[in-house]
């Protein structure tokens, strides 16, 4: 994954711990920074330091992508996401078909 890539946050609702904020799930943004790696929180919540490590990227979402016409066109929300929370924009884990 590299800066400039367009990514979609997977639509998901796992039973355990998860650090993909609900308001960005299913939405498309652009990778703006490679943060480095960290312990995958969904696992570390259960097994602590034994959790696998995973890359984290900062994804910028245009406000209208998240909030529709109520989002200001000049505003962006940046969220740090573990890469397994992300998919290609065309993949659609929720079964939808819109681009």
């Amino acid at each position, binding site marked *: 994954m590299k800066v400039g890539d367009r990514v979609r946050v997977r639509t998901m609702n796992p039973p355990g711990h998860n650090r*993909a904020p609900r308001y960005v799930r299913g939405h498309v943004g652009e990778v703006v920074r490679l943060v*480095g790696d960290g312990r995958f929180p969904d696992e570390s919540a259960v097994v602590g330091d034994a959790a696998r490590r995973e890359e984290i990227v900062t994804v910028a979402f245009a406000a209208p992508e*998240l909030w529709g016409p109520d989002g200001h066109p000049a505003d*962006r929300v940046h969220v740090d996401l573990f890469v397994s929370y992300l998919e290609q924009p065309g993949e659609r884990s929720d079964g939808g078909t819109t681009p």
Partner: protein
Amino acid sequence: MSGAGHHRNAELQARVNRLLDLAEARGVITRAEVDQRIEAFGDRVTARNGAEMVVRAWHSPEYRERLLADAGAAAAELGHAGGGYSSDIGLHAVANTPGVHNVVVCTLCSCYPLAWLGPPPPWYKSEAYRSRVVRDPRGVLAEFGLVLPESTEVRVWDASAEARYLVVPERPDGLEALTEAEQLDLVTRDCLIGVAVPALAARV
């Protein structure tokens, strides 16, 4: 602080007390040592650390460049070691420019650059701030008294993983007329979170 009344939640306080009892009984640490460490942290780690970094960046383009490239290392240069409960926690600085304003939040909990700036203000942890600043940043900033031009791009940073964010405000006009202490006073904790900007007019 450590022993009694630090936590408002009675159950949590009971747990802390029990842990402290065990730690003392087993010779790990005493209550007095815990209090000492909390006090030392509170004295040493405050928003003043961030103000020192910002003022240095205002005066030194080289330092500014280092701050924006690796804020943790730039903080360490000034003696602000940072760190935290996990070595994965890193500091990242984002700069305001004439067309861009940055503001920081943690929608999932209350991630904050505590190891560099001290504890966050209570409102930073409130559900009202955390839920609203991502969907209506301009409205929330206006409630803090910061009204931004329509043309300004607002960048919200939701600290949801290992990075902690620090806003570097723009250097205000007229800075040269101030002493170093006055310059540091301009860079408040709220400026470092991004809900305010340094205001010379506010000086008395």
